[in-house]
């Protein structure tokens, strides 16, 4: 995680899926060392945006760049070492041990069929330490609780030590304590220099962790700026059609509380 991590840039990105335009002229500069929250109502294209940024969906128009290099033309393995992606569905198809799931994060770093290097093993240990999952190492992953599994899957992404960590609704189906755990870990990752992009639903969470916010509505960017400039009653009303009271807590973090629907 050197200081040389370039920004993740989306330039006039259009995405059409099954004939429907899901993203429409999306441009944004995502900065490393910061947590960027992608917010927007259901169907706004948040998941599509994060998948497109992870080069899992090819844009019909526009480019995604890391600094001055196009992400779409990167070698898949090199891209995988640079951009880590945590998908929305938190499941494993085979009931393997938690440590084996975490070790999958090293796949883009490893020579296929060679034994994992000391470096790989260290990265796995470190990731499990950081997510407090070390004691779960030998447990079959599908026997873990939802919160434990979410942490194991996060450890999987962290083990790859990507410059960019893109997480699609990592808090779904977690209780409040585990939600805060995951948010804090993601914030730590950003403080360590990496870029963190999270799709979020909860405005309270966004106010708590986001340095920057990208606000989407119907596939278009309503706003993309520092959190304090985007999480305002006016912008949130425009995006969600709700009234929101925005305040700050004692640590100066934004607190956005939905009051009711706009009438």
């Amino acid at each position, binding site marked *: 995680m050197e200081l040389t991590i370039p920004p993740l840039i989306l330039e006039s990105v259009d995405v059409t899926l099954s004939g429907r335009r899901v993203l429409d002229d999306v441009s944004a500069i995502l900065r490393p060392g910061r947590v960027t929250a992608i917010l927007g109502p259901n169907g706004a294209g948040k998941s599509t945006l994060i*998948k497109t940024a*992870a080069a*899992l969906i090819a844009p019909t128009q526009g480019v995604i760049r890391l600094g001055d290099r196009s992400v779409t033309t990167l070698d*898949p*393995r*090199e*891209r*995988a*070492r640079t*951009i*880590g*992606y*945590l*998908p929305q*569905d938190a*499941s*494993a*198809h*085979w*009931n*393997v*041990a938690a440590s*084996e*799931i975490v070790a*999958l*994060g090293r*796949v*883009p770093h*490893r020579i*296929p*069929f060679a034994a994992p290097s000391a470096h790989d093993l260290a990265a796995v240990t470190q990731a499990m330490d950081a997510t407090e999952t070390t004691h779960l190492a030998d447990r*079959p992953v599908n026997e873990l609780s939802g919160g434990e599994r979410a942490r194991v*899957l996060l450890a*999987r992404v962290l083990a*790859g030590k990507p410059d960019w960590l893109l997480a699609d609704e990592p808090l779904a189906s977690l209780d409040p304590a585990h939600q805060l755990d995951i948010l804090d870990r993601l914030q730590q990752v950003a403080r360590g220099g990496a870029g963190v992009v999270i799709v979020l639903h909860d405005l309270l969470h966004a106010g708590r962790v986001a340095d920057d916010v990208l606000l989407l509505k119907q596939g278009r960017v309503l706003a993309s700026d520092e959190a304090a400039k985007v999480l305002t009653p006016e912008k949130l009303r425009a995006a969600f059609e709700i009234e929101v009271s925005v305040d700050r807590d004692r640590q100066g973090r934004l607190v956005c509380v939905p009051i009711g629907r706009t009438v």
Partner: protein
Amino acid sequence: MTRKLVFLIVLVVLAFGLSLIAGKAWVPPSAWFSPDPRFAIIVELRLPRAILGLSIGTVLGLSGAVLQGYLRNPLADPAVVGVSSSAALGAVAAIVLGIAANPLVLFACAMAAAAGSMALLAALTWRSPSPVQFILAGTVLASLAGALTAFLISVAPNPYAVAEVIDWLMGALTDRSLDDVRTALPFMALGTILLFLTGPSLNALTLGEDAARSLGVRLGRLQLLVVLGTGLTIGASVAVTGVVGFVGLVVPHLLRPFFGHRPSALLLPSALGGAALVLTADSLCRLAPGAGEVRLGVAMALIGAPFFLMLLLKGRAAWS
């Protein structure tokens, strides 16, 4: 892990030895190296049969493990891809057309049909290389090949051809020569290598397709390996022995509790387990009372299905 692998290897060696010894005429190892007249049985009959049993078991078990990993479904086996039915269709066509007197022609027809179905499968799934597409296209191809086979049987010119087709479809290792071995082995060897190459990608697929792609897995390339590997191994195996089912389904299933669920960790054990199972079953086939033999494909289904059902009922929790 290593100890369990060694156990499987010993099992394969024993089963191979048994396959040389057992039969209507027992040939003890003492007769192998002396000028015993029974030595001819070994070289001409038993050895080719044992080598074929070994290699067919290997590829059936291995391809079953690969397909279960690729489709992330413990019920997958080579039959779902449609390769076995297509290869069978090619062979049946050769028999019905009366050009199967030369085993090479039969083999070529079976392989050509298998290749054709692989090409179709690849074409059908190329645009979106996902396991769901794959399983749908494979099922369609399997039913199509099955229907065409039935059609060919119904228009067969004479009852002898029908009898030959049915006999062949049941799958057996009887009366195979070293020529059959030489024809089939290169295809199986190449396919086996391709199938083993899928291991790391299969592991990544544990997390789903998006996560696997985000880890640098090229799903298109993986699918190509699976299609080519299955086509070469199963095509060649069906082309020399007919359809032997059940091995690819049950062997990975049986071994999963011992070797863990990680797809790549199951490949080698499944290959060994398949070899041991087919060799043993084939030896038992010869020991059936009466003048003839039980067909390997039939025996496999007869012994296997109830056994598998029992395991499912007993250990339902272990596989869920």
